[in-house]
C-alpha cells in the first residue's frame, strides 16, 4: 500500500523545532470512535488544549474534549439590554428634554409608543452582539492557521479525523504528546510549527 506523497517543507522537521515555536502535535484517526479514543487518552493525561478536525460533526466530541458552553449568549443578552436602554434614553431625551413638542395630544414620552423602538433597537444590538461576539470568540476571519501545515490536513475534509494537541496547553511536551497519540491509535503523527 502506497502512502500519499508528503509535501516537502510542510511537516516540521525536528531540527527546526528549536528555532521555530511549536503549534502542536497532530495525528490522524480512521473513524470518529478512534478519534474519541484519542481525545479521551489525551485528556486522561492532562492535555486540555486540543482541537479536532473532522469531515462532519461528531456526536459527543464537545463533551469528550471538555468544551464548555459558549459565552456568546451573555454577550447577546448584554447587547439586547444596551439596545433597550439606549432606545428609552434616545426617545425620552429627544422627545421630552431636548425638543419637547406635543404630537397628537400624546405625552412627551410614554412606553406605549416607545416600545416598538425599544424592541427593535434591542433586537438590532443583540444581533450585532451575536455576530461580532461570535467573531471575537472564534478568532475569525483569519487567512492562516498553523494546522494547515499538517501534511495530510486535506483529508480532514474527506475521510479522516484529525486531532491536534496544542502546545499552549498546560504541561505540554511534544514527545509525550506524540506518544499519546500514537498509542491511542493515531497515525501520521507530526509536530507542527506555528
Amino acid at each position, binding site marked *: 500500500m502506497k502512502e500519499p506523497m508528503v509535501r516537502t517543507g510542510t511537516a516540521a522537521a525536528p531540527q527546526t523545532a528549536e528555532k521555530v515555536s511549536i503549534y502542536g502535535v497532530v495525528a490522524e484517526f480512521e473513524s470518529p470512535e478512534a478519534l474519541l479514543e484519542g481525545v479521551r487518552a489525551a485528556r486522561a493525561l492532562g492535555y486540555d488544549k486540543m482541537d479536532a478536525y473532522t469531515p462532519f460533526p461528531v*456526536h459527543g466530541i464537545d463533551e469528550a474534549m471538555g468544551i464548555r458552553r459558549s459565552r456568546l449568549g451573555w454577550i447577546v443578552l448584554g447587547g439586547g439590554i444596551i439596545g433597550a436602554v439606549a432606545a428609552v434614553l434616545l426617545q425620552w431625551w429627544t422627545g421630552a428634554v431636548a425638543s419637547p413638542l406635543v404630537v397628537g395630544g400624546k405625552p412627551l414620552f410614554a412606553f*406605549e409608543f416607545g416600545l416598538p423602538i425599544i424592541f427593535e433597537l434591542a433586537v438590532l444590538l443583540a444581533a450585532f452582539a451575536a455576530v461580532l461576539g461570535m467573531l471575537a470568540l472564534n478568532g475569525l476571519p483569519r487567512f492562516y492557521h498553523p494546522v494547515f501545515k499538517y501534511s495530510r490536513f486535506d483529508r480532514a475534509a474527506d475521510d479522516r479525523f484529525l486531532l491536534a494537541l496544542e502546545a499552549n496547553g498546560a504541561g505540554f511536551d511534544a514527545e509525550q504528546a506524540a506518544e499519546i497519540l500514537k498509542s491511542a491509535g493515531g497515525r501520521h503523527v507530526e509536530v507542527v510549527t506555528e
Partner: protein
Amino acid sequence: MSSAERTVQVLDNYEMDARLWRRGRNALALLALGGWAVLAAGYSSGSAAFYPAYLLAFVYWLTIALGALFFVMLQHLSGAAWSVTSRRVAETIALVIPLSAVLFLPIVFGLPQLYEWARPEVVAADPVLQAKQSYLNPRGFTLRAAACFLIWGLWAVILYRNSVKQDDGGTLELTRAAAKWSAPGMILLALTVSLASFDWLMSLDPHWFSTVFGIYIWSGSGLAGFAAITLVLLAFRRMGMLRASVNHEHYHDLGKWLFALTVFWAYIAFSQYMLIWYGNIPEETAWYHERTAGTWRSVAALLVFGRFFVPFAVLMPRAAKRNLAVLAGAAAWILLMQYVELFWVIMPVFRTEAGLMWIDVAAVAAVGATFALAFWWLLRRHALAPVGDLRFTKALEFTNV
C-alpha cells in the same frame, strides 16, 4: 424500505398500566360529577353568573385542545423529528375537540344571557346592532360555530387516524399524507379560530372590533396548548410513562416553544393595545377602558407581568428549560395565566369587579374533568407514542446542540 425490515427500538412500555388507568378514570369521574353537580345547582338557582362562568370554562379548555391541534399540524408541516415521541399525547388532546362540541350546546341555549345582540329589545333600540344583525344573529352564530367544530373535528380525527395507522408499520405515504392534510388544515385552523374568537369573545362587546383579535386569542391558545402538552408529558413521567422516549432533550425543545410563544403572545397583545392607544378613538378604547377600570386594572397588570415578564425571564436560561421542575412550574403558570387572560377578556362585560366566584371554579372543574376524561378514555385505545412513525428512532436520538 419495507416495514418488516425496520426494527423499532422499544425503550418504554407504550401501553398504560390498567390499574393506573382505572385510578385516573375514577378520580376524573369523581371531579367531573362534583363539578357538574355544583354547576347544576348554580344553574337551577337561576344564578346570572352561570352562563359567563360556563362560557369562560368552555373556551379555556377548548383553546388548550386547539393549541394541541396546532402542535400536531405544525410538526407534520415542518417535518420535525424531535417531537414525534410527544405527538400522540398532543393528538389525543386534539381528539377531544369533536366530543367537546356537545358541551358547546349550553352556550347556544344561553345566547340572550351572554350576548347583547341576541336580545331583540336591545337590538331594537340600537342602530349599530341593527346594522350588524345580518352577521350577529343567533342562527348565523350557531351555523358558524357548527362549521368550526366540523373542521376542527375532521382534522383532529384524520390526523389521529393517520398516525394510529403508522403503529402497525409506518410508510412514507402515511408520513406524506399527514403533511398534506396539515397544510390546508393549518390555514383553516387560522381562519376558524379567528372566526370563533370574533363570534364567541369579541361579540361580547358587540360595538367593539379589532382585526388582530383572532390572532391574539390564537397566540394564547397555542401557548396554552403547548404548556398543556408539556405538563401532561411531565405528569406521565412522574407516573413512570414515556420516561426514555421523552427525555431532557425533548423537554428542552418544548421549553423553547413555550418561551417563543410567550414572546409571540406579547407581541400580538401589545400590537392590539398600542394601535388602539395611539388612535385613541372612543369606540376602540372602550374595550380597554372597561378592562382597566377598578380592580380589573390589577388583572391587566398581572397579565403584563405574569403572562410576559415572568415566563420570559424564567424560561430564558438553557438550564431552566432542562430543569424539569422549573419547566413544570412554568407550564402550570402559563396555563393559569391563560385562564386569567380569558377571565379578563370575558368577565368585565358581566361584572364590575374582578373576583373569582364558586360557580367559576365549578365550571372549570366540570368542563375540564369532562375533557380530561375523554382524553383519558381515548388515550388507552392506542400506544402512548407513534411507535411506527418513520422518524421515531430519529426522535429518540435527538440531542440539542
